[in-house]
């Protein structure tokens, strides 16, 4: 292995944690489709109530797939620094001014939905990086 080569970004997808998540997503979607199929056969057998569930379960299955896809997309964005990591909850550890700035940056971006504006997302990425960098500085520099 040549040390200069960076690890591909998608490698996190095959970590045990993410593999478990993929397995869960497949099982959940498959289970919901199976339930839909079951309701379909019940409906054919004369249970008219089952018609509603025949269409509902595939809908839920589709929702689960979209949800799973979004978690992956978000993780790529977090890793590219385009989006603050929601699990970090870093704002609680920050001095009041910085916390509100970071939070406001996050909510402005959130209010716009997709990151259409490259300048804005670049700035938010910069804020997120700053936030990560200065996260523990206050303690050492006696700011708080």
């Amino acid at each position, binding site marked *: 292995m040549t040390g200069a080569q960076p690890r591909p970004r998608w490698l996190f997808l095959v970590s045990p944690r993410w593999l478990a998540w993929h397995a869960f997503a497949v099982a959940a979607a498959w289970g919901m489709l199976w339930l839909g199929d079951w309701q379909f056969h019940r409906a054919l057998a004369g249970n008219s109530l089952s018609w509603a569930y025949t269409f509902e379960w595939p809908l839920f299955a589709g*929702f689960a797939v979209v949800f799973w896809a979004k978690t992956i997309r978000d993780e790529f964005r977090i890793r590219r620094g385009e989006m603050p990591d929601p699990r970090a909850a870093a704002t609680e550890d920050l001095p009041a001014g910085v916390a509100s700035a970071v939070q406001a*940056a996050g909510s402005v971006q959130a209010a716009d939905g997709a990151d259409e504006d490259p300048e804005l997302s670049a700035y938010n990425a910069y804020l997120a990086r700053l936030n990560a960098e200065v996260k523990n500085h206050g303690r050492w520099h006696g700011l708080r």
Partner: protein
Amino acid sequence: MEAAVLRYRVMAYVTGVVLVILCFVGIPLQVAGYPTVANDVGVVHGILYIIYLVFAWMLSRRLRLATKPTVIMLLAGTIPIMTFIVERWVTRRFINPALTGQAQPTAPVGR
């Protein structure tokens, strides 16, 4: 943001109330031999839950929630009483901080 919160709240309460009716009125009646209420309310809850899923998910995207709180929020619509508890938890833990954060005049980027 406020609109997304309101949509989520309305659906949380409506879905929650219908689910409570289904579980604590419909199911006992079904057991007693009158399945009509459970059948009809069951279908209504199914439809409401789909709307709840959509609104809860839209709000969770707005709040940029991690996967775990999002899943808790979405599944709350299938467990009786749970929507009320989760709605209060989400409000205290995520909605209120986001709203007060947004109201800060120090926002670096405004459009």
